[in-house]
């Protein structure tokens, strides 16, 4: 492996590494626009110039591969002056849109100007004018004047999605990013161009004008849209509640994970967060009284649930768990059901529309924790009914207590009549979930769940990777994490009162308990999972 020196520090990197990445390993950031580690080299912005010993002129770092004995300097007066020149070139025609541009605060023209520019502008001629505020597709809007023509978006559509919608038309300073007239940027990953655009040329229609980015908090999490579990950040607005229509979650961004989603996030995942702050969220426990759902306390609700579970024989209870639930939720439920002897349990409810794996990130299975549900034993116990069997048994009044977690059965792949028969046949329907639905409307007891964004926990993706997600904000209203609810039932159910796994105060403890008990999770802990997760044992 070649050894070289960067700013006086000796490093050793694999052959073929470019100088931007090499410098990074030395803790040195080389400013750049067009370079992106997930895309081909463009070498267009000319910002990443560095000085290399014995080379007369500064060279771009992105297209220079390390060589044994190379001596690289990134902070010489000449490199600094070159950067200042490059910043001026970039800003010659750039419109002074900062006050109205969403990118402000995370704009790499702003950031690098403050760090490497700080010159007095002298361009007083008319700037080149190009189309502004042009929607390109459902999610992306273009301001061609702001564009610095780094071509990242064009390369993304060519190299990652293979859809080639974007091009750079014309030439010289009239060059313009755009679509072929009459087409749209509609591929399933269109939102990624917003992330990779260093400036406010490609911005998010969903996020447009909602809230300034410096008011946002960032939390590491995992997308719950499918079984891949793309690593994300949840950006919340808690400081300016009069912005973003008072909604807490402002947007989702992908987080790099080489093994799972690299730098990318699909549009369905990126924009699949509106439900978290929607009015349809269940925020208080409620009990059906005289035909009406009446809000009640957790105490009363849990009392009712415990009574129901105690009233029926185990074979008269059917539980539809959900692969939307975390490992912690599922493990605590498993302990509860094992303690009660309930074997009629399942998590696999067929979707109305079967999905499809694509060649990139999207999985047919739109649940984040099917693998976890499988490994943690939420499939039917010995002699127990599966999901369809539970529904039919409820219709036949053999299952009398139907406990549905998260699923809206009326929107599932089960026939409407089958679902109706089940919901009408059961003596008591308990719904526990985040969001009101036609199923929750048929329940006698509704328990509000915290959303994944409101609690810490883990999902196990389709590859078997266990990944942590973290609470970006407290649960809405009185919603509670499911594992916590199961734990609170413990006190009311003599058969599980002694189960310490249900007595956890923190999700970390629930995970520790399941890691100790389930061979696939042996040795894993929140600490070892870190930010990129770990594979379950074979």
């Amino acid at each position: 492996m070649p050894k070289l020196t960067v700013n006086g520090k000796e490093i050793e990197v694999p052959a073929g590494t470019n100088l931007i990445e090499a410098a990074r390993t030395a803790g040195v950031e080389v400013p750049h626009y067009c370079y992106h580690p997930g895309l081909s080299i463009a070498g267009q912005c000319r910002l990443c110039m560095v000085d290399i010993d014995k080379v007369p002129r500064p060279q771009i770092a992105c297209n220079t591969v390390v060589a044994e004995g190379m001596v690289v300097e990134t902070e010489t007066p000449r490199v600094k002056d070159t950067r200042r020149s490059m910043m001026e070139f970039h800003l010659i025609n750039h419109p002074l849109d900062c006050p109205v541009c969403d990118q402000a605060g995370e704009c790499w023209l702003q950031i690098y100007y403050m760090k490497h520019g700080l010159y007095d502008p002298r361009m007083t001629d008319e700037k080149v004018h190009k189309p502004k505020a042009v929607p390109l597709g459902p999610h992306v809007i273009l301001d061609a004047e702001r564009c610095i023509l780094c071509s990242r978006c064009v390369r993304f559509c060519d190299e990652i999605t293979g859809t080639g919608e974007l091009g750079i038309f014309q030439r010289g300073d009239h060059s313009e990013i755009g679509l072929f007239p009459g087409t749209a940027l509609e591929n399933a990953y269109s939102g990624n161009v917003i992330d990779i655009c260093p400036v406010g040329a490609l911005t998010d229609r969903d996020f447009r004008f909602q809230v300034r980015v410096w008011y946002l908090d960032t939390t590491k999490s995992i997308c719950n849209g499918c079984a891949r579990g793309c690593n994300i950040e949840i950006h919340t607005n808690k400081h300016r509640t009069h912005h973003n229509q008072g909604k807490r979650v402002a947007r989702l961004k992908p987080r790099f994970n080489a093994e799972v989603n690299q730098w990318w996030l699909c549009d369905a995942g990126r924009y699949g967060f509106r439900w978290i702050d929607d009015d349809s969220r269940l925020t208080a426990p409620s009990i059906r009284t005289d035909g009406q759902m009446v809000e009640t306390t957790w105490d009363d609700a849990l009392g009712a649930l415990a009574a129901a579970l105690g009233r029926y024989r185990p074979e008269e209870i059917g539980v539809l768990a959900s692969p939307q639930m975390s490992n912690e939720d599922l493990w605590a439920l498993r302990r509860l059901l094992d303690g009660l002897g309930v074997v009629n349990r399942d998590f696999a409810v067929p979707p109305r529309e079967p999905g499809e794996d694509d060649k990139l990130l999207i999985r047919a299975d739109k649940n984040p924790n099917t693998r976890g549900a499988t490994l943690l034993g939420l499939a039917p116990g010995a002699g127990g009914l599966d999901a369809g069997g539970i529904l039919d048994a409820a219709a036949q009044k053999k299952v009398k207590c139907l406990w549905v977690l998260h699923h809206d059965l009326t929107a599932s792949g089960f026939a409407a009549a089958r679902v109706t028969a089940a919901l009408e046949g059961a003596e008591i329907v308990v719904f526990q979930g985040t969001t009101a639905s036609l199923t929750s409307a048929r329940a006698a007891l509704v328990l509000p769940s915290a959303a994944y964004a409101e609690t810490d926990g883990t999902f196990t993706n389709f590859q078997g990777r266990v990944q942590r997600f973290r609470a970006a904000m407290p649960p809405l209203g009185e919603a509670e994490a499911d594992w916590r609810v199961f734990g609170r039932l413990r006190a009311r159910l003599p058969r599980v009162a002694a189960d310490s796994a249900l007595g956890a105060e923190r999700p970390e403890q629930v995970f520790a308990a399941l890691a100790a008990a389930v061979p696939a999770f042996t040795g894993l802990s929140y600490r070892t999972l870190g930010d990129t997760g770990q594979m379950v044992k074979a």
Partner: protein
Amino acid sequence: MAEKILTKNFDLRDSHTLRVYREAGGYRAWDKARGMEPAAITEEVKKSNLRGLGGAGFPTGVKWGFIPKGSTAPKYLVVNADEGEPGTFKDRYILERDPHALIEGMLIAARAIDSRVGFVYIRGEYVQPWRIFSAAVKEAYDAGLLGAAVPGGGFDIVIHRGAGAYICGEETGLISSLEGKKGWPKLKPPFPAIKGAFGQPTIVNNVETLVCLPHILTRGAEWFAGLGTKTQGGTRLYSVSGHVVRPGVVEAPVSVTLRQLIYEHCGGIRGGRALKAVVPGGASAAILTPDEIDIPMDVDGPKSKGSMIGSAGVIVMDDTVSIPDALMVVARFYAHESCGQCTPCRESTGWIYKMSHRIVEGKGRKEDLDNILDVAKRGAGTTICAFYDGAVGPYISYIEKFRDEFEALIRSGAHA
């Protein structure tokens, strides 16, 4: 009068035909080359001191030598007939009047670099030259000079018309255009000899460079080298235009001086006027003043005055010329032809044109001159290709050498 070598066929009737070319001695060099080892051909060309005649002036034999030894990849010979440097027209003359010389030169070069396919990139506007050259290629195929019948594996010529972009004269811009893309120059490394057209080892040679080859092979490298100066051999074709009495193509040994070209070969300044300025090597070359014209017009002469021989396009300006006006025309050219790929060139060529235009419209400001100079100096050497450096040549030299004229115009607020 020096011997006509490159132009010896130009005035022959039907000089573009195979019959006339052969009668004048054509294709005998190719006969000799067929019996030579490729490496021997390259050695001869190195010894001849032949330098690229398209603009960069790189030693041709050395360039050929960059093809990786023992490479089994297909190697492409690409002919740069995208003549576009303002003030240059000599390749057009070759295509129209001596196309078979180019074909013969291609055959020799192809043998040297082990190429089976030659792509000739002709600028789209050159319709008549294209037709004439295409007819000559057909003649060559019919005569078995091209195609599978060529000993050593055969050689094909593919003629590719451009579609209007000066940047396609830059060797990697040309390659991109040949590949069916915008004429965006490519990052170097990798260099074309390693990874060029369609990802394969490629040599790009100018038309005129190639037509020197038959003469080098028939009369010897030493003879060719001896015609010129220590660092550059042979004669070359100077395109002279502007305010001279007899504009046109002038063949002369590369030791000819600029003064001789203007006053002896082209009849001096028209109307008996005085010389004010002269561009020695196409618009991209820094301008020279009358006291700077006693230089040999080889790769080193103009360089000694801070300019370059480039494409040897000599543009002569008499004392009626407004230099600020000339700068505006040239700045407009660079703004129009910038491909837009990299930031310094894309953004500043347009801005500098705006400033130069304002100056000739009487709306110049005193800070404009220093702004143009400073921006140009900051961009020089930072771009993907040398196009911008070609723009910087005139930007800086016109202003630095004629600063008084610019300042007077700005002060007066008059139109140029």
